[in-house]
C-alpha cells in the first residue's frame, strides 16, 4: 500500500480523545491539535498546575469519566503527534495552518476529525458587559481549572442543565449562591418526567442539585424575564421579573448562559454543507450518525457538530474514527460501531427532553431594548441593528454583518451571532433557517500579525504502517 498521510484531529476534549484512541488502536498515528495546554476540553478541563483538589471535588459526579479520559490520553503519549496550545486557524485543500508559540506550521493531512466543542449560547441583556458577569461556562472554568470563585455572593441566570450544575458546584465550594434565575417557566420542568425514564441518573442528579440549592437558602426563580445586570464599575445587583412581580438581588458576580452553541467555523472552512437545526436553533454541518460530513474524509464529532453533551461526544469521537478507518479500507469493529450509534440515538432522545425542560426564550428578540449592546466587540446596539435591518431591508445575516459590523469583531460572531440571527428573524418575520448563517473566515481567531513559518513548508508525516 502506498504511504498515506496521517489523519488530523482538532480538539482534545472527550470526542477528540476517543477518536485518537480508536485511530491509534488501528495502527495510525494521528496529529491532535488543541488550544489548551492540557487535554480534557472544557468539560474535563485540567488546572495548569496541581492544586491539591481531588477529581471528585473538581468534576463531581463526572470524576470517573474525567479521570478515565485523562488517563487514556496519557497512555497515547508518543503514539500521536500531540500539539497543545496550538490554534488551527485555516484549512484549505487538505492543509491546515496551525500556530503555536508564534510559529506557523502547515500540516498536510489525510482524514480530518473535527471535535471543536461548544461555548455558552448567550443572549445580550442590559449590563451584560459589566465586570463580574461571566458566562456559565466561564464561571465554571474559574472554579474548576483556576480554583477561583467569580464572587462572594453570586447569581446564576439563564437556562439549561449547566445553570443548576454550576450553581450547585459553587454551593459545594462554599460560595454563597444568592439566586438561580431560570428563564424557563417551572411548567417546562414537567418534561423531566419523560427524562426520568430515559436517563434517570441525569434527571435525579438535577433534582438533587436544585433541592440542595433550595435547602441552602438559594432563591430559585422560574420564568424570569426583563433581567438587567446593574452596577457602575462592576456588577452590583440583578433586577428581573418573575412570578408576576419585580425583584432586585444584590450580588458581586453573575454566571449567565442559555444552553450551548457549536463551534462550527472549521467545518465551514473544510467545505462541509450546513443545514438549519431547529432544536439547537443554529445552522450546523450536515452529519451522518457515523460522523461523516458532506465532504469525503471530513468527520464531525461532539458538541462542535450539534449539542449533545460529553457522553455523546465520547461515543461520537470513537464512531467518527471508525468511519475514517472504514473509508481508508482498514479493518474496524462493525459491532462496536453499531453499539456506539445506539448510544448516540439514546442520548439524542434525552437531549430532546432537556431542550423541552429548558426551552429557548423566544420572547427575547422582541423584548430586548434598543439601547442594549448586541455586539460586545464592536459595541453595536440592538437599536442600530434593528435600524440597519429596516433601512436596508435586510433578510440575510451576512448582509447584516456587512452593513452593521455585527459578527465582524474579534470574536467573529461567537458571542453575538446567535442573538443577531434571532433578532433578524424576528424583525423580518422569517424563520431561522431562511436568514442564512454567518460564513466563517480565516483566521477563525485572532493570530499575531508576525508569524514565523516553520522550517518545513508542509509537514507531511506519513503513516509507516499503511
Amino acid at each position, binding site marked *: 500500500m502506498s504511504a498515506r498521510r496521517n489523519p488530523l484531529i482538532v480538539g482534545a476534549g472527550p470526542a477528540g480523545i476517543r477518536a485518537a484512541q480508536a485511530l491509534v488502536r488501528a495502527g495510525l498515528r494521528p496529529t491532535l491539535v488543541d*488550544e489548551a495546554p492540557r487535554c480534557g476540553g*472544557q468539560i474535563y478541563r485540567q488546572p495548569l*498546575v496541581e492544586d491539591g483538589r481531588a477529581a471528585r471535588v473538581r468534576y463531581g459526579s463526572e470524576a470517573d469519566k474525567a479521570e478515565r479520559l485523562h488517563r487514556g490520553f496519557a497512555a497515547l503519549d508518543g503514539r500521536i503527534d500531540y500539539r497543545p496550545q496550538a490554534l488551527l486557524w485555516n484549512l484549505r485543500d487538505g492543509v491546515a495552518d496551525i500556530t503555536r508559540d508564534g510559529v506557523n506550521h502547515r500540516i498536510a493531512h489525510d482524514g480530518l476529525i473535527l471535535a471543536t466543542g461548544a461555548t455558552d449560547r448567550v443572549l445580550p441583556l442590559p449590563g451584560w458587559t*459589566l*465586570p463580574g458577569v461571566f458566562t456559565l461556562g466561564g464561571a465554571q472554568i474559574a*472554579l474548576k481549572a483556576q480554583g477561583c470563585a467569580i464572587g462572594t455572593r453570586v447569581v446564576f441566570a439563564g437556562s439549561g442543565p449547566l445553570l443548576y450544575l454550576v450553581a450547585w458546584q459553587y454551593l459545594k465550594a462554599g460560595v454563597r449562591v444568592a439566586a438561580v434565575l431560570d428563564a424557563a417557566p417551572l411548567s417546562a420542568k414537567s418534561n423531566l418526567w419523560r427524562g426520568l425514564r430515559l436517563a434517570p441518573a441525569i434527571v435525579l442528579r438535577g433534582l438533587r442539585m436544585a433541592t440542595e440549592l433550595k435547602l441552602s437558602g438559594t432563591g430559585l426563580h422560574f420564568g424570569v424575564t426583563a433581567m438587567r445586570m446593574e452596577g457602575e*464599575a462592576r456588577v452590583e445587583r440583578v433586577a428581573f421579573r418573575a412570578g408576576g412581580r419585580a425583584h432586585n438581588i444584590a450580588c458581586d458576580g453573575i454566571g449567565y448562559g442559555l444552553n450551548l452553541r457549536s463551534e462550527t467555523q472549521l467545518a465551514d472552512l473544510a467545505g462541509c454543507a450546513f443545514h438549519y437545526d431547529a432544536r439547537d436553533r443554529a445552522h450546523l454541518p450536515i452529519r451522518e450518525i457515523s460522523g461523516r460530513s458532506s465532504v469525503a474524509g471530513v468527520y464531525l464529532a461532539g458538541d462542535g457538530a450539534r449539542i449533545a453533551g460529553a457522553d455523546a461526544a465520547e461515543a461520537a469521537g470513537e464512531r467518527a474514527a471508525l468511519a475514517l478507518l472504514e473509508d481508508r479500507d482498514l479493518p474496524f469493529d462493525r459491532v462496536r460501531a453499531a453499539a456506539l450509534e445506539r448510544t448516540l440515538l439514546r442520548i439524542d432522545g434525552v437531549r430532546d427532553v432537556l431542550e423541552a425542560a429548558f426551552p429557548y426564550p423566544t420572547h427575547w428578540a422582541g423584548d430586548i431594548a434598543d439601547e442594549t449592546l448586541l455586539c460586545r466587540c464592536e459595541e453595536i446596539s440592538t437599536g442600530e441593528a434593528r435600524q440597519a435591518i429596516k433601512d436596508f431591508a435586510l433578510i440575510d445575516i451576512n448582509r447584516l454583518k456587512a452593513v452593521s459590523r455585527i459578527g465582524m469583531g474579534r470574536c467573529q460572531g*461567537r458571542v453575538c451571532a446567535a442573538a443577531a440571527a434571532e433578532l433578524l428573524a424576528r424583525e423580518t418575520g422569517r424563520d431561522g433557517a431562511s436568514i442564512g448563517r454567518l460564513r466563517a473566515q480565516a483566521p477563525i*481567531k485572532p493570530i499575531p500579525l508576525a508569524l514565523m513559518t516553520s522550517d518545513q513548508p508542509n509537514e507531511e508525516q506519513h503513516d509507516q504502517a499503511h
Partner: protein
Amino acid sequence: MPLLHRLSRINHAAVGFTLDGVACEGRAGDTVLTAILCNVERVRSSEFGGAPRAGFCQMGACQDCWVQCEGGERLRACSTPLTEGMRIVTTRRA
C-alpha cells in the same frame, strides 16, 4: 475589591508581575486573567465606549480579555499562563 476570589492554590508559589506599573502577585498555576482579577476588577477598557471589561467566557472564545504588555504585545489573558515578570497594562485602551 478584586473580581475573583481564590479558593485553592492560596499557598502556591508567588509569581510577581506588574499591573500598570504597580507590583502585584499571582500564584503558580494562574492564567493572566486570574492573576489580574484576583488583584483588581477590570482587565481593559472598551476601545469604543471606554467602559470597563473583565473577560467573559474564560475559554478563549469571546476575545474580551485581551490585555497589552508594556512592550506592546497583546495577550489573551484567559488562555495565557502567568509568568514571572510580566508587565501588564490595563489602563491604556487595548
